[in-house]
C-alpha cells in the first residue's frame, strides 16, 4: 500500500471527474486518487497539499485554464496527462511538443495507453516536453519542435527548419545548418502538426517553412528556391494556395 502512486484529477465537469476516477480505479489498482478538483484554483491548493506524481489536467476550464495553471506554478513536480475536447490549437501544440493528451470522449484503450506510458518513464524523461509546450505557448516566435529519436526526443527550433521531404512513412527535416533529421512520421502527420506554424505543404512530398522562401519561379506549378539554396517543386494544384499564404505572411 505504501508505494501507491498519488494522482490528482482536474476537470470542471463533474461527470468527467467521476468517470475518470472509476475507470482509473478499475484499470490501475496501483494508482491512488488523492483528489478531484473542479478548477485551477482548487488544483493549486491540492498540488501544494498532496504533491501528486500524476495530474490529469483539463485544458478548457472557466477562470484559469490548464496551461495558465501550470504556468502559475514555480516548479512542476509532477507528470501531466492533458485532457481536452477540442481538436484545435491545443492538440497541435501537444503534437509539436510530443506531450500526451486524451481527446474527450476517449475509449478505455487510449486511457490505458497513456497511463502505461507514464508508468514506464521517469518524470525527468517527460518533463522537458511539458516545459517546451509551455514555452511554445508563451512565445510562438521561439517555438520548438520535439522530434522522436531512438532514445527520446531532440528539440529543434521551428525557425531552424527549412523544409520537409517525405519518403513513404518517413519524413526528413532539412535544417538551416544543413543537418538532416529523419523521423518516422508521415507527411500527413507533420502537416496536421505544423499547418498553423508558418509551414505549408506545396507538393505531395514537400512541405516548406514560408519564412525561408527566397524566390518563386512560376511554371505549371512552379519552383521555390529556399534560403539554403535548395529547390522545391510546387504542384499545380497547390500554386494558388502557396502564393496566397506568401501574401498573407
Amino acid at each position, binding site marked *: 500500500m505504501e508505494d501507491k502512486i498519488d494522482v490528482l484529477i482536474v476537470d470542471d465537469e463533474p461527470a468527467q471527474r467521476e468517470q475518470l476516477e472509476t475507470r482509473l480505479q478499475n484499470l490501475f489498482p496501483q494508482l491512488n486518487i488523492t483528489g478531484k478538483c473542479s478548477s485551477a484554483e482548487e488544483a493549486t491548493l491540492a498540488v501544494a497539499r498532496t504533491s501528486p506524481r500524476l495530474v490529469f489536467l483539463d485544458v478548457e476550464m472557466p477562470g484559469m485554464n490548464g496551461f495558465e495553471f501550470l504556468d502559475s506554478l514555480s516548479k512542476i513536480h509532477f507528470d501531466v496527462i492533458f485532457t481536452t475536447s477540442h481538436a484545435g490549437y491545443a492538440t497541435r501544440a501537444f503534437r509539436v511538443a510530443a506531450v500526451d493528451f486524451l*481527446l474527450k470522449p476517449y475509449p478505455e484503450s487510449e486511457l490505458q495507453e497513456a497511463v502505461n506510458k507514464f508508468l514506464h518513464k521517469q518524470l525527468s524523461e517527460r518533463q522537458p516536453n511539458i516545459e517546451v509546450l509551455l514555452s511554445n505557448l508563451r512565445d510562438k516566435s521561439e517555438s520548438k519542435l520535439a522530434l522522436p529519436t531512438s532514445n527520446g526526443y531532440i528539440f529543434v527550433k521551428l525557425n531552424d527548419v527549412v523544409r520537409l521531404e517525405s519518403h513513404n512513412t518517413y519524413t526528413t527535416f532539412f535544417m538551416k545548418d544543413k543537418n538532416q533529421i529523419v523521423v518516422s512520421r508521415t507527411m*500527413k502527420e507533420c502537416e496536421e502538426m505544423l499547418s498553423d506554424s508558418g509551414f505549408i505543404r506545396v507538393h505531395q512530398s514537400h512541405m516548406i517553412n514560408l519564412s525561408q522562401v527566397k524566390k518563386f519561379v512560376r511554371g505549371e506549378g512552379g519552383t521555390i528556391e529556399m534560403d539554403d539554396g535548395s529547390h522545391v517543386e510546387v*504542384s499545380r494544384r497547390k500554386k494558388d494556395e502557396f502564393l496566397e499564404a506568401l501574401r498573407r505572411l
Partner: protein
Amino acid sequence: MLLLQSEIAQTGELINKVSLLVLLPFLVAFSFIVFIIYRRNRESTLRRKQLELELQAIRAQIHPHFIFNCLNSIHYCIQQHQTEKASDYLLKFSFLTRRILENSGKKLITLEEDLDILKAYLELERLRSGDRFTYEIHLEENMETSNIAVPMLLLQPLVENAVWHGFESRKQDGKITIVIESKEDQLLMRVTDNGVIAERFERLQLPGKEKSLGRSLISQQLDALAELEGRETRFESRILTNSSHEHSGMITEITLPYIPQF
C-alpha cells in the same frame, strides 16, 4: 532657314497627327480587348468563388439530418438499456463528428479521408440496425487515395437510402458494395445494394427532384463540381432484377473528374 524649320515642324506635326489617326483605332481595339479579357477573368474568378461556396453549402445541408439520425439511434440504445452499445456508438459518433467538423471549411477532401469518414458512418449504421447488413469497399489496385480529391461524403446519401429504405425487410443479409476505380481522367464510383423495398423503386421512377433529398444533394454537388472543373459528371441509378425477373436491389454509378490533390 526659319521658314524651313517651321515647315519641318509642320510636317512633323502632320506626321504625328496622321500616325495618331492611324493608331487610334488599333489603340481603341486593343483597350477593348484588354477590357474584355479583364472582365472575363474577373467573371470567371467570381463564378469560381461562387461555385466553391456552393459546394461547401450543399455539403453543409447533409449533416444535420445525418447527425440527428445518429443521435436518435444512440437515444434508442439508452432507452433499451444497452449501455455498452450506446457507449460504443457514441465514441464512433464523436470520431465521425470531429472529422466532419475538421473538414467543414474545405470544398474537397482526400479520398483517403473521405473513406475513413464513410466507414465510420457505415459502422454507425451497422450498430443501429443490429448488423442487418455488411459492406465491402473495393479500390482499384495501387490507387493513391491520399492524392485524389473528392467532395466530402458524396456517397453517404446512397448508403443511407439503402440502409433506411432498402434493408428494412432483411434479417442479416443486407449487403452494400462500393467500388471505386479510375478511368483515364475520371473517377468511377459504383454503389450496389440488395435492398428490395418496393417503395424505393417507385421513388426512382419519379421525375428529377422528387426522387429524394439525398439524390438531389448528390446532383447539386456534381453539377457544381462539373462547372468548377469544366468537366462532365454522371449520376445514374438502375433497379437490378434477378433471373426470375424480381427486383433484387439497386446499382448507382457516379462519374466525376479525377482531381489530384497535389
